């Protein structure tokens, strides 16, 4: 089990020794059960750090902001950022390394293992507790979560209230870290594509009806993109609103900008937007589930990304975020890649 005191001790050490600029971790929210990102700059603040089943955020996303900030500074602080990562988050880091978005020296990785559990699904918890308000939740023994309500503490088997992605996770401890907290125990893995396969078994028209209903809800708020650690492009090809037009942008460059997708949140444009996002995440998405969590319309975006994750694995034997030194999914091929679909 992750020893929070040890984590804090290490955080304290690296801040005191000025090894890192600051640490990105989790802290209790002032209103609400779920933890929020914490940016710890001084050893005195280390006490705020926490680790519990509500640490859902993929904090690697903040490295994107960090890189942008640093690029603007005249004399940037070259020390690494301390970053607390779960297994899934660490795979995001690996992809960022693979794509040379960050350097290994840019980050000091404080890995935390989810061991046999993972993070919480708020809806499942509410259902289990029949709406009772939760004051606190923490990791317990025997893969249970200890939940505190007004009636006191109860232990709930983690499996019953874990996020779907955690049930399907195959990297429950960080694949890369400078220091690891908790044990490298491999989860007894369930079928990593269970939720997907249920959906795949629907007929083509049922699948269309489902996606149409889901994607018609999309208001194109781009929360999915904002929260995604892989969506670090300065400019999104699928969205004309965020075209990065700066002083140096030439008229020619402006003229080259293509409206692949219209802004209007209608079926066709929503589909193309989400198709582009899905195909651009193929071989890069590591299923941290942040897009789905951030979506205000509850669109099951994981189900879209998971599909290409499965195809990458089954067709090409490729899994994202395990090795930063291999070529990416679409910048490589094998002679024996399947071609039974080609005439």
């Amino acid at each position, binding site marked *: 089990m992750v020893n929070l005191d040890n984590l804090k001790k290490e955080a304290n050490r690296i801040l005191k020794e000025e090894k890192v600029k600051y640490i990105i971790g989790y802290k209790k929210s002032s209103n609400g059960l779920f933890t929020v990102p914490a940016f710890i700059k001084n050893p005195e603040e280390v006490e705020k750090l926490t680790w519990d089943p509500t640490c859902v955020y993929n904090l690697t996303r903040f490295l994107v902001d960090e890189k942008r900030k640093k690029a603007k500074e005249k004399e940037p602080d070259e020390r690494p950022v301390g970053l607390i990562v779960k297994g899934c988050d660490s795979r995001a880091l690996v992809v960022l390394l693979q794509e040379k978005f960050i350097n290994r020296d840019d980050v000091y990785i404080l890995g935390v293992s989810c061991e046999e559990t993972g993070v919480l699904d708020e809806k499942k918890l509410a259902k289990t507790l029949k709406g009772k308000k939760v004051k606190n939740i923490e990791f317990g023994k025997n893969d249970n979560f200890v939940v505190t309500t007004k009636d006191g503490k109860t232990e709930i088997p983690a499996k019953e209230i874990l996020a779907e992605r955690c049930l399907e996770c195959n990297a429950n401890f960080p694949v890369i870290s400078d220091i690891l907290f908790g044990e490298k125990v491999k989860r007894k893995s369930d079928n990593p594509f269970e939720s997907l396969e249920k959906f795949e078994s629907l007929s083509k028209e049922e699948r269309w009806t489902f996606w*149409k209903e889901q994607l018609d809800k999309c208001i194109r708020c781009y929360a999915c993109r904002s929260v995604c650690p892989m969506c670090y492009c300065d400019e999104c090809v699928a969205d004309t609103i965020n075209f990065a037009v700066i002083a140096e942008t030439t008229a020619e460059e402006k003229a080259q900008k293509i409206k692949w997708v219209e802004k209007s949140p209608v079926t066709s444009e929503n589909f193309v937007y989400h198709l582009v996002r899905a195909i651009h995440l193929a071989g890069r998405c590591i299923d941290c589930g942040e897009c789905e969590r951030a979506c205000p319309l509850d669109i099951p975006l994981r189900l879209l990304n998971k599909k290409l994750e499965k195809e990458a694995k089954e067709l090409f034997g490729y899994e994202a975020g395990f090795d930063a030194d291999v070529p990416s999914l679409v910048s490589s091929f094998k002679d024996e890649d399947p071609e039974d679909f080609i005439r």
Partner: protein
Amino acid sequence: MAEEFEPKIVAFLCKWCSSAGSDLAGVSRMEYPSNVVPITVMCSGSISPLYIFSAFNRGADGVLVSGCHPGDCHYIKGNFYARRRIALVKKLLDYIGLEPQRFQMSWVSAAEGKKYTQIIKDFVKELKPLGPQTKLRRNL
């Protein structure tokens, strides 16, 4: 009687094999339906998934991607990247419920005018019963 539905098809052809094969079909005076408008690109490896989504978005009833046979790519290996990329796009489109017949890939060499002709004939024949593609078509 209502006019028979004529599907609109965009074919992305690589310059060195498939476009040349399509030229050969012409030189040999083979006949095939006129539903396909070819767009010649340098290599099948240059065909971005965005081109395919865009074609459907702009009302294509079918999209064809065609390149050199494996090992014959003018650019050594572009068609291998295409094969992988197109496989993913095809799986994705199928998954969201687009009729799989609407998006196809073929290998057509510069010598295969006959094969190109057959592919177009089959493609049109398979698309006719499906009717117009409205799922991804822009309708603003």
